[in-house]
């Protein structure tokens, strides 16, 4: 039967926001003019039904005649103009298809075999030339990795293929060169590792199957195996413990009383209140997001949510966070390396991906940041975090037992994300987009949401022995890890597939999203399946855990994989890696000479700092995230009189009606890591905890999560990484705050065809989370009343200005970066916490990018109050305003309050008062330097992201 087509659009005269948005982008993002109108329509296609049934669908489901019109098997009326239809490529799962089939069934329509949907754009006006349309398609409408322009009506919507045979890979006779040829672009293993694989099969006396080779490559990938972090390092000729061991040891040594699970499960777990625990995990999704930002960001969020869901015997996700690093959105197109996408596009698509996944899952995204630096132009850093809550009694990692069943829950398996784990471990080149496009897919948040509903129900009934996410490496990774100490027997023919034609190794390695694997005692199986049916979740017994410590996988009668677990998990040759780092002397730059301060155009500088990309308001991003769902927000990302002033951290009350809270914050500063990775990393950690403490959190009840996103670990980058790890370890020992989860992604180097190498500025993102006994004893950042004292608390060396926004504005980086004093920091944090707890703090904001000037301005915006500030004696106005030393706080205390009584011996100084006049006035040596109107500062601060997002 022919394919039925239904086109739906809004009635003439009614707004078409998607079309208007595109029209705006044509002008603002591409600089194209001469378009009068862009309109959009949805196109639906159905296979297996007749025209009458299609009409029924159009009337009852697809088009609402209150505001829409439709056509069947023909164009819409008045379709003059240039039409472009954009659809997902065949095989890229369109989540809407399942809903179309479900609704058709509910409507009693029989015979429907397949359904699809796509979008049709109509461009009108003299600008709609073939050349312009080609540009629009390329830059705005189609990401060729997952989408295509539909030229002709398809003949069928059903994807099928015949299954590939199991191949044997003859590696036993391969020489080293042949081994490396096999590894390149596919396995990403080095020669020593390839030799270990060859030896295993030589000893076994047979050649490996394709599935076995792929399983080993996945298990041993940098992404899954963290080879660099486990390697013995030789730094400048001196041997050092592996980095992971150092981080873990520091955590063990501080022996934090609230830590329940560190580095062993899918997330780190700490004690909460009322018999509950909270857990946190932060992931990166840089490689997929670089080539398909919307799908990459979606699957990044989906993956990190599953990490939380797969903690202990299952946790409920309560928060999502997002931290991004891009090149500036105004970067010229010719400066973007070949094979890379423009940051303006990346930023908007990544935000859309995080939004669509988090919002649809009902998880508030309420903490995040965006950083810009030109050297992210080849590869962005996309960091997504998630936090959860679960009962203490089931918060520890479960262990499958022999005889337990391996049950796969959730989505079906397709050819999605093949080679995701190995791909994200490789460097990026201009070939990346072509060779690895199958590594990206579009997430289906609703599939994950119902799986989460079912999982929590099963967990509450105690049906789950162990659970893990099917992420990188698919079944291979999930079952291989769960059964490491037992053994696994898997039957691949049982796996529910999206379409036929997958090779066995593809089924085994597929990274199709929204799947989890449970270990379930046989007596609990029936009840589990019943729960899953109730939530429309597919559940299949795919495997059984054994006692033979072998990984045996079959497909029908074929043996696909038969490996020794010991070899698979412990056979990876331990790496010994050399690192080299020459510490630049951290010397004073000596530029802040006593300039003629009165002659400087302070207002212009202030506005430039406020509109710097790393300082400016990110409100247009925050607004598209549902940061209020779950009704748990006790300190939102934005607050104050206009609802547009930022807070330092988010505080959530995950137990409805209870005042106990979870605080979440983070810190990172790639620019400082470029100057000195040790102090840059200390800055990141201190910024994360300062953000939490600024709201009143107790520094003794915080845990940390690390994310190292680094260039490929050549000797120099590895030297920098080693220093960053040292900084983390020193931070843990000085503050007592442990890292309990972490992740490294060491592939952010781009190699061009001309041999040009582009490394990102190294990123250490530290996330902090903790518990707050009573959210009523926390503060926001907005000034509360006029006449209050403004106090600067914390130790800073005013001349340490390198890497600051101010220096960037001056066009330089400098060498004298802020060197955090680890001895003083804990005392300052305690003092600020104590002051908030005693109710003596009206408002508090920590100092970060943009310095005190930005912090005070933001507090003014929130309070609709001005500030009169006096430059601290001994500091130049530039230093006073723009120094970015971390661990310092701007605190509002009552006019009559006594700073000495409140802050005691830690460094503090009174710097001014809040005033009713709507400006920030700064006085230096008893003279007014300038008075900056809040409205001007705020406009400057809000402008950059408004322009990018068209708000």
């Amino acid at each position, binding site marked *: 039967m022919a394919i039925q087509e239904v086109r739906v659009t809004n009635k003439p005269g*009614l*707004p078409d*926001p*998607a079309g*208007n*948005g595109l029209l705006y982008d044509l002008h603002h993002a591409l600089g194209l003019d001469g378009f009068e109108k862009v309109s959009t329509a949805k196109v639906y296609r159905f296979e297996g039904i007749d025209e009458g049934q299609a009409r029924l669908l159009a009337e*009852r*489901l*697809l088009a*609402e005649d*209150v*505001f829409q019109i439709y056509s069947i098997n023909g164009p819409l009326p008045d379709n003059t103009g240039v039409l472009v239809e954009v659809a997902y490529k065949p095989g890229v799962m369109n*989540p*809407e298809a399942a*809903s*179309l089939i*479900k*609704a058709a069934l*509910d409507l009693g329509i029989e015979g429907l075999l397949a359904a699809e949907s796509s979008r049709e754009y109509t461009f009108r006006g003299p600008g709609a030339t073939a050349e312009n349309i080609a540009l629009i398609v390329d830059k705005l409408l189609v990401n060729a990795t997952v989408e295509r322009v539909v030229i002709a009506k398809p003949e069928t919507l059903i994807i099928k293929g015949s299954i590939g045979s199991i191949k044997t890979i003859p590696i036993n006779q391969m020489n080293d060169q042949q081994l490396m040829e096999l590894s390149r672009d596919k396995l990403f293993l080095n020669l020593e590792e390839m030799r270990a694989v060859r030896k295993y099969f030589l000893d076994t006396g047979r050649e490996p199957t394709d599935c076995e080779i792929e399983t080993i490559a996945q298990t041993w990938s940098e992404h899954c195996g963290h080879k660099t972090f486990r390697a013995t390092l030789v730094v400048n000729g001196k041997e050092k413990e592996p980095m992971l061991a150092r981080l873990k040891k520091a955590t063990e040594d501080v022996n934090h009383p609230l830590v329940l699970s560190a580095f062993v499960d899918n997330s780190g777990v700490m004690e909460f209140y009322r018999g509950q625990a909270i857990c946190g995990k932060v992931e990166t999704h840089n490689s997929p997001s670089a080539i398909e930002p919307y799908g990459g960001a979606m699957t990044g969020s989906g993956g990190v949510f599953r990490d939380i869901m797969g903690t202990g015997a299952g946790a409920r996700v309560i928060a999502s966070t997002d931290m991004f690093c891009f090149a500036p959105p105004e970067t010229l197109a010719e400066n973007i390396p070949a094979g890379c996408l423009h940051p303006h596009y990346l930023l908007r698509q990544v935000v859309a991906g995080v*939004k669509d996944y988090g*919002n*649809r899952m*009902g998880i508030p995204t309420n903490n995040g940041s965006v950083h810009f630096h030109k050297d992210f132009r080849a590869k962005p850093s996309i960091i997504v975090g998630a936090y959860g809550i679960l009962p203490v009694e089931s918060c520890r990692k479960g262990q499958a037992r022999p005889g337990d069943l391996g049950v796969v829950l959730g989505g079906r398996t397709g050819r999605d994300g093949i080679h995701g784990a190995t791909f994200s471990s490789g460097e990026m080149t201009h070939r990346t987009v072509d060779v690895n496009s199958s590594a990206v897919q579009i997430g*289906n*948040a*609703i599939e994950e*949401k*119902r799986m989460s*509903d079912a999982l929590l129900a099963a967990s509450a009934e105690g049906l789950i022995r162990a659970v893990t996410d099917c992420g990188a490496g698919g079944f291979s990774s999930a079952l291989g890890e769960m059964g490491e100490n037992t053994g696994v027997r898997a039957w691949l023919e049982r796996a529910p597939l999206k379409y036929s034609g997958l090779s066995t190794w593809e089924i085994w390695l597929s990274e199709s999203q929204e799947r989890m694997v449970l270990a379930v005692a046989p007596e609990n199986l029936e009840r589990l399946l019943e729960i899953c*049916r*109730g*939530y*429309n979740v597919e559940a299949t017994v795919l495997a059984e855990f054994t006692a033979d410590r072998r990984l045996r996988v079959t497909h029908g009668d074929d043996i696909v994989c038969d490996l020794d677990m010991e070899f698979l998990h412990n056979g990876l040759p331990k790496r010994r890696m050399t690192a080299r780092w020459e510490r630049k002397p951290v010397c004073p730059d000596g530029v802040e000479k006593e300039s003629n301060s009165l002659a400087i155009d302070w207002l212009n500088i202030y506005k430039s700092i406020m509109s710097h990309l790393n300082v400016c308001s990110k409100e247009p991003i*925050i*607004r*598209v*995230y*549902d*940061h*209020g*769902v*779950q*009704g*748990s*927000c*006790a300190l939102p990302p*934005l*607050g*104050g*009189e206009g*609802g547009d002033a930022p807070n330092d951290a988010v505080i959530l*009350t995950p137990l*409805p*009606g209870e005042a106990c809270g979870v605080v979440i914050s983070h810190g990172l500063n790639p620019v400082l890591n470029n100057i000195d990775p040790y102090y840059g990393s200390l800055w990141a950690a201190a910024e994360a905890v300062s953000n939490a403490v600024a709201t009143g959190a107790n520094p003794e009840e915080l845990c940390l999560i690390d994310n190292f996103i680094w260039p490929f670990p050549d000797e120099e980058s590895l030297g920098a990484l080693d220093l960053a790890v040292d900084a983390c370890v020193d931070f843990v020992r000085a503050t007592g705050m442990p890292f309990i989860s972490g992740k490294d992604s060491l592939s952010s180097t781009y190699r061009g065809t001309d041999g040009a190498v582009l490394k990102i500025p190294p990123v250490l993102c530290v996330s902090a989370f903790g518990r707050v006994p009573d*959210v*009523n004893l926390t*503060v*926001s950042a*907005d000034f509360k009343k006029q006449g209050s004292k403004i106090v600067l608390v914390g130790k800073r060396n005013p001349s340490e200005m390198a890497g600051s926004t101010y220096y960037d504005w001056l066009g330089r980086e400098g060498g004298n970066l802020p060197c955090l004093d680890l001895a003083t920091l804990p005392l300052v944090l305690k003092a600020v916490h104590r002051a908030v707890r005693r109710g003596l703090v009206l408002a508090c904001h920590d100092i970060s990018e943009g310095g005190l000037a930005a912090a005070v301005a933001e507090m003014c915006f929130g309070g609709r109050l001005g500030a009169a500030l006096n430059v601290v004696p001994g500091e130049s106005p530039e230093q006073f305003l723009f120094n970015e030393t971390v661990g310092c706080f701007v605190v509002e205390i009552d006019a009559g309050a006594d700073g000495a009584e409140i802050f005691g011996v830690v460094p503090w100084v009174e710097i001014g008062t809040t005033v009713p006049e709507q400006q920030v006035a700064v006085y230096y040596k008893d003279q007014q330097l300038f008075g900056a109107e809040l409205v001007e500062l705020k406009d400057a601060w809000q402008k950059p992201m408004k322009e990018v997002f068209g*708000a």
Partner: protein
Amino acid sequence: MKPPVCVLRTDGTNCDEETFYAFAKAGGDCRMVHVNQLRSGEEKLSSYHILALPGGFSYGDDVHSGKVLAVELTSLLKEQLQEFVEAGKPVLGICNGFQVLVRTGLLPERKIGTINTTLMHNDSGKFECRWVNLLVEDSPCIFTRGMTEKTISIQVAHGEGRFYTDPETLNRIESSRQVVFRYCDAGGKATALYPANPNGSLNAIAGICDETGLVMGLMPHPERFVEKTQHPNWRRGIEGDPHGLAVFQNAVSYAREM
């Protein structure tokens, strides 16, 4: 007696927990009911005195927001729904639940299958989450008793919330006082201006009821302001009870007297 409240959920419902909590705090005896349980007969709407359709993205908001659930309800559970409203029991749809109610036809005229109002994509073309002010209109709505002419502070979080209908229906809704909430400025005046009116709704309409006042739907989320600390500026001082709580208390006290 605590009136039994059915919090109806399905794939993609995600404001169910907080809606459950809001009704529970208001004195309801809440139960989470999956639409599958109604379909299988394991649960019956008639066991409940209040029906709540929470926010979220039912079935991914595919095709239109709330549409696939609306089709499911009107195709397979029509009689139960009809009986429920004919028995004079309150029905509340919040955000996605409101979208479902207009797409079943229960709003504005309690005619299942007759869709004459809709919620289009926001004028901004974007999903948006922000706190707005609502003016409570004088209406027969049982959920807003005692709130008339007050201005309340409340959060919206949606991408498809632009209330739209033809001029005749609009007139009818207005003249029979079925408009329950309007987006308003800080001074309490209904407004068409963004962002106070976050989506471009006709006549600034944020929520409506049927002629009896027993079926109500609104885009904003009253369940997100039933505790003081849920307001973004509770530290700056917010007077009185959390503004969303009365909606649930009114429903529960009405059901108690039924």
